[in-house]
């Protein structure tokens, strides 16, 4: 990358360290932090959306919709995450390719043949000819969908509980004022439920951050993959030979996660204070007392 690093075997000390830390593979490693942060940035709102829909469906007065919501929450909550992650990536990928093969392949043969899953070349997602960037983006997309489905169910449960926690008298009063069911939901229930949902959502956010190493299982080259790959001892076959440094790389990840979760905790504490303002909860009451 830099001119001074052209011949890694002949340099020493600080220059070696500098060149080592700026090697192509390390740059990939630094990028993988961006990948993890991007995953969180996309997954969190997506899971919140899934959860909101799940909770709303579970509370629905129309029985089939309510069952759908409840079955979703029940299934995802009852199955170990890791099985979902292993299952979904294969199921989504093969399901997508099967659907596409129905549309673009002639004959439409059943793709599950013995040990093999076989669809015509045109039905591959992404196509075999697509650049590796597309393959990576596709893998990342599958990961986002899987995370959103799994965490959405937990969010749904938290929001469902929070909706139940809003004092019933408030809803009845609103109805007595002549508001329709949708208006009560929009104006009274949703604005007030957040304060009840926040502690649960905060927990889920922490769990989501800590679940990002699962990306590695999904075939996305995340920070754990690179830490293991870079830390492993390297013989002279490599440009920068070194011993087993995995401990240091994992220590780095440990610090990264700790700093990240600590920052998140602070943000949630502030958010909680803001949402408690004027609420009929003990937190809100304490704030009013302090002000008086």
């Amino acid at each position, binding site marked *: 990358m830099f001119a001074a690093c052209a011949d*890694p075997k002949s340099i020493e000390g600080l220059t070696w360290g500098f060149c080592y830390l700026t*090697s*192509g*593979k390390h*740059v*990939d490693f630094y990028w993988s932090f961006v990948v993890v942060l991007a995953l969180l940035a996309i997954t969190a709102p997506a899971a919140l959306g899934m959860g909101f829909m799940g909770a709303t469906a579970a509370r629905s007065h129309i029985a089939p919709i309510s069952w759908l919501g409840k079955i979703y929450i029940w299934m995802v909550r009852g199955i170990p995450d890791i099985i979902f992650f292993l299952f979904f990536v*294969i199921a989504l*990928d*093969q399901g*997508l*390719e099967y*659907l*596409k093969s*129905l*549309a*673009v392949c002639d004959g439409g043969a059943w793709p599950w*043949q*013995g*040990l*093999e*899953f*076989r*669809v015509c*070349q*045109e039905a*591959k*997602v*992404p*196509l*075999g*000819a*697509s*650049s*590796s960037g*597309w*393959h990576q*983006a*596709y893998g990342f997309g599958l990961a986002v969908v899987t995370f959103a489905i799994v965490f959405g169910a937990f969010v749904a449960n938290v929001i469902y509980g929070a909706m139940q926690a809003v004092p019933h008298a408030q809803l009845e009063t609103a109805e007595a004022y002549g508001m329709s069911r949708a208006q009560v939901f929009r104006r009274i229930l949703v604005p007030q439920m957040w304060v009840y949902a926040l502690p649960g959502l905060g927990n889920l956010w922490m769990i989501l951050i800590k679940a990002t190493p699962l990306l590695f299982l999904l*075939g996305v080259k995340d920070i754990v993959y690179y830490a*293991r*790959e870079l830390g*492993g*001892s390297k*013989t*002279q*076959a*490599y*440009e*920068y*030979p070194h011993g*087993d440094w995995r401990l240091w790389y994992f220590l780095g990840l440990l610090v990264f996660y700790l700093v990240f979760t600590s920052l998140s905790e602070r943000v949630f504490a502030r958010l909680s204070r803001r949402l408690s303002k004027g609420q009929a909860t003990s937190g809100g009451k304490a704030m009013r007392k302090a002000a008086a």
Partner: protein
Amino acid sequence: MKKLLLATALVTLSGAAFAQDVVRLGTEGAYPPYNFINDAGEVAGFEREFGDELCKRAELTCEWVTNEWDSIIPNLQSGNYDVIIAGMSITDEREEVIDFSAGYLPPASSAYLALSADADLMSGPVAAQTSTIQAAFVAENGMAVVEYATPEETVAAVKNGEAVAVLADKDYLAPIAAESGGELVLLAKEEAIGGGVGLGFRDSDDELRGKFDAAIKSMKCDGTLDAMITKDEYFTAAAKTWGDAGKEGC
């Protein structure tokens, strides 16, 4: 109409839709000098150079993909890539689930790496990578086997005393022993296991296998394969080569 819409959506999703065939080569990327990820973050090693040469001769566009060793066969079968090129020995067990090309590396010996030359292999577990011929060999020969997912971990297990020795391809272990500064040594005892290294294909991919077989044969015929095997950075001049046996029927 519905199908058309679905197809359009999926084609957009799958990116550039060019009909040109690309062959995806799947490797592990953790087993120097066979294959590894170099410091630039690219697949390197003997199999990189060899695979690129094969694709040139077979006039195919190839792309490299890395995959964990554990799931390298299932992911071939589900179509994530088309060829396994990962130092995989040809065995009857594997022949049942995938097809192999002709061998491109002659059967090589496996060696034990231990902390001292007089290590007793019966005194404790011997480390090997999961689903390798070495792991099966250790188990079949009455030694206790302890398996790890990556080659790196098998060596680490010997260093920290979890295993008395590690059994792996000698070509992988020799540089590690040489560079350990005397901490790790190769035992005198070696094992001849495996039937040579070949490319792995799906059972249904006979056409593609034929193309690669022809390319391998042409590399054996003009001696480029032997020259590549004996390069210093790969298996050195001491390595077993195909020699005249490879030139039969040229």
